[in-house]
């Protein structure tokens, strides 16, 4: 198992280096960074001085080396638009995005796994038909439409919940949380539901399909023939076997929720990294874009690593498989 994790880590480092290289190319060659940094009336001497100061006159590979070195220390340069260090910008906004992503993933997991099991165990019930139809709507409606619809119903018409922002926040160290105030929690509800709906339906359909498959296997039949209780069969034997593919998809979905919550964050004016990214693209704020690229890759690599480790915990066959290299 340790060898396996070491191998995975090694692969992760390669992935991160490749992504860093792409980010570096974007950073270095999309437009002239100096044109953005210097004022309009700078002369050639100012220009050359800045080139030297920023190390832009050095060979390509040394620049890349510096870029990776700085990235490892969390330094991605200064935002053109906001004139603040990029890493500070991202760190400031990261808590908002993570709280939103985690809240929506929890909703998606609980709802998706629960409904998936229900509809798999009662494949013929009317309620199952209703759930499956509703899930089709959930998959096919675009996120912004759901968000706007929810705002219209719960914020505009019923006036139960706020329609934008994070509400009051509390500062704990560098982490600014909205989970400790009632207005913060109330603000979280609508965006979290909006973001979770697609994942929920996806997980639900996946769990259902896997569960129906597992219920047909010999070992479930044998478990029934041994007279085990329904509960033990459904939740002990069947559910655990459906988990491997569900973990994969959920992990990747969590990654994309953190990385691409852009639409939801825009609709709800949520001050997270997604909206930071959108605004940066609009202003061609290249350092932020490059840093964001590296950040997203890091999220996916870390989540993939966690998913791989979870496989080991769930499936004993893989533990032995890793020993023999298969």
């Amino acid at each position, binding site marked *: 198992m340790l*060898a396996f994790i070491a*191998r995975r880590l*090694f692969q992760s480092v390669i992935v991160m280096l490749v992504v860093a290289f792409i980010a570096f190319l974007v950073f270095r060659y999309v437009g002239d960074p100096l044109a953005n940094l210097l004022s309009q009336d700078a002369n050639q001497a100012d220009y050359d001085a800045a080139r030297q100061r920023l190390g832009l006159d050095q060979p390509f590979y040394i620049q890349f080396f510096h870029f990776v070195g700085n990235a490892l220390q969390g330094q991605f340069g200064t935002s053109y638009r906001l004139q603040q260090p990029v890493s500070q910008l991202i760190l400031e906004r990261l808590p908002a995005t993570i709280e939103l992503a985690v809240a929506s993933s929890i909703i998606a997991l609980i709802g998706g796994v629960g409904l998936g099991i229900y509809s798999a165990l009662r494949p013929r019930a009317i309620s199952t038909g209703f759930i499956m139809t509703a899930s089709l709507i959930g998959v096919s409606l675009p996120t912004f439409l759901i968000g706007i619809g929810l705002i219209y119903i719960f914020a505009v018409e019923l006036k139960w919940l706020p329609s934008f922002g994070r509400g009051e926040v509390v500062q704990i160290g560098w982490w600014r949380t909205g989970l400790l105030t009632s207005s913060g929690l109330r603000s979280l509800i609508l965006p979290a539901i909006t973001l979770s709906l697609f994942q929920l339906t996806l997980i639900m359909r996946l769990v259902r399909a896997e569960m129906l498959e597992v219920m047909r*296997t*010999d*070992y479930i*039949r*044998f*478990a*029934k*023939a*041994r*007279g*085990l*209780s*329904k509960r*033990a069969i459904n939740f*002990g*034997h069947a559910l*655990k*076997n459906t988990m491997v593919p569900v973990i994969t998809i959920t992990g990747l979905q969590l990654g994309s929720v953190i990385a691409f919550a852009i639409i939801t964050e825009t609709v709800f004016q949520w001050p997270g990294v997604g909206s930071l990214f959108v605004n940066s693209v609009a202003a061609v704020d290249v350092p932020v874009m490059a840093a964001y690229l590296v950040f997203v890759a890091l999220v996916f690599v870390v989540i993939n690593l966690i998913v791989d480790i979870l496989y080991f915990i*769930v*499936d*004993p*066959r893989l533990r*032995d498989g890793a*020993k*023999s*290299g*298969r």
Partner: protein
Amino acid sequence: MTEPVLSIKDLVVEFPFRDDVFRAVDGVSFDIMPGEVVGVVGESGAGKSMTGSAVIGLIDRPGHIAGGEIRLKGERIDNLPEAARAKLRGKRIGMVFQDPLTSLNPLYTVGDQLVETIRTHLPVSEAEARQKAIDLLAEAGIPKAAERIDSYPHQFSGGMRQRVVIALAIAAGPELIVADEPTSALDVSVQAQIIKVLKKLCTNHGAAVMLITHDMGVIAQTADRMVVMHQGKVVETGTVGDIIRRPREPYTIKLINSIPTIERKDGAATPAPAANDDGAYVQVKKLVKDYEIGGGGFLKLMPGKVEVFRAVNEVSFSIEKGKTFGLVGESGSGKSTCAKMIVGLVRPTSGQITVDGHDIWASGAGHQERRKRVQMIFQDPYASLNPRWRVADIIAEPMRTLGIARNRGEVDDRVAELLRRVRLDPVVMRKFPHEFSGGQRQRVAIARALSSQPEFIVCDEPTSALDVSVQAQVLDLMSELQAEFGLTYLLISHNLAVVRQMSSSVGVLHNGVLVENGPTDAIFDNPQADYTRMLLDAVPDISKVA
């Protein structure tokens, strides 16, 4: 007179379809006495497994019991509500399934599954249940049961897993065990042990056994009485000795006659002595195949880390033109790897294969030559034919790729001719594989193998997925084709009886090593290697009935 444990009377199981009702079990009646082993035998589709499912109450929807009654110790159980039936399962009726590789949950240890089952039915503590589980495993012949109890199913071999399954079935002390093909997925030598374990455990725990199988040999060894089923009906019931020696019904007689036996048939042509000279048509010399295990990915970059598993170890034999060489061995003995190397699907690590003087693994011309001359017939006719293709396209594919026939009319003529040769009506060429039975599909597969006009055909377990009576037909067809076209066969099988009937010489593979090689009769009548002797002894044979 004692009361029967199980009494089935006029049982009918129906599957309603949109415009038809299929009767899988049609008026079946028989009794099983306490401690008795009753064999239910029949070919696939005879309704024997469905009868077993009805007894334990696990018929898949939309099937249902449409008539008759099932009584357990006199108490009627077929009309009980589902909750009450579920209580009987495991507690009073246990079940053993065919495939030990799939009947255990892969994510739980063997001990967890045993303890769970025991505690579901018996009021014992966790520790007591665990002790009982260890005892059961030991009784089922699992060595070092106390250590092995925390292993996962995949850490056991097939035979060991089936022992675990039997231990699980008997864990709560049921009065009746329904064993559905308990040994069909296992090797012969393991099969014999499992039958012993099943019998021993059931005797020790006083359970009667309903043994469902297609293998008359297994019944002959195990059962007291047998029930012969055909198309949902009971054809004949009686003691095993009576039915095998004096079958009354035509169907039973046909069934018994189509079973190949390892005794030599009278009047069979005396096979020519096996030739090992260089003039033989197919020659296999010192064939070796190594597989690397351990350390995938970047560990491979480190030297000295690679372990090698030798699947085939210096196997040499030769086949004369127009003869059949039988290669026997248990699963994992390397026989299929040999076959793949000989037809050119897997590259050998070392060694040489020549067909009619051409090296199979030579590049260029030899490569093309091989494709024409050597063809293969696979084990599973359900998996080896592309379900989306029509039979005509399946058979014509080798001709097209090898450029034997190009224009449409010529191809169709040849396909029709091939279908006639395998005794199928040429009209079927417009059909899809699923419209055929297993035996017919295997004929299509044979026609496909013949379509490139090969001289040498490698048959990898050509009949092991088929019923005995169909098996006999396919084997007859193969013999006729051999006589007609002078084909040379390499017949790979775990079924010693099939090999004995078909081949003129035999090789016995064990762990990748050819332990014995020679004329069929010499090896079967006077085996030299211990392993061959063990294999022959393990074969369940109906002629051994006392």
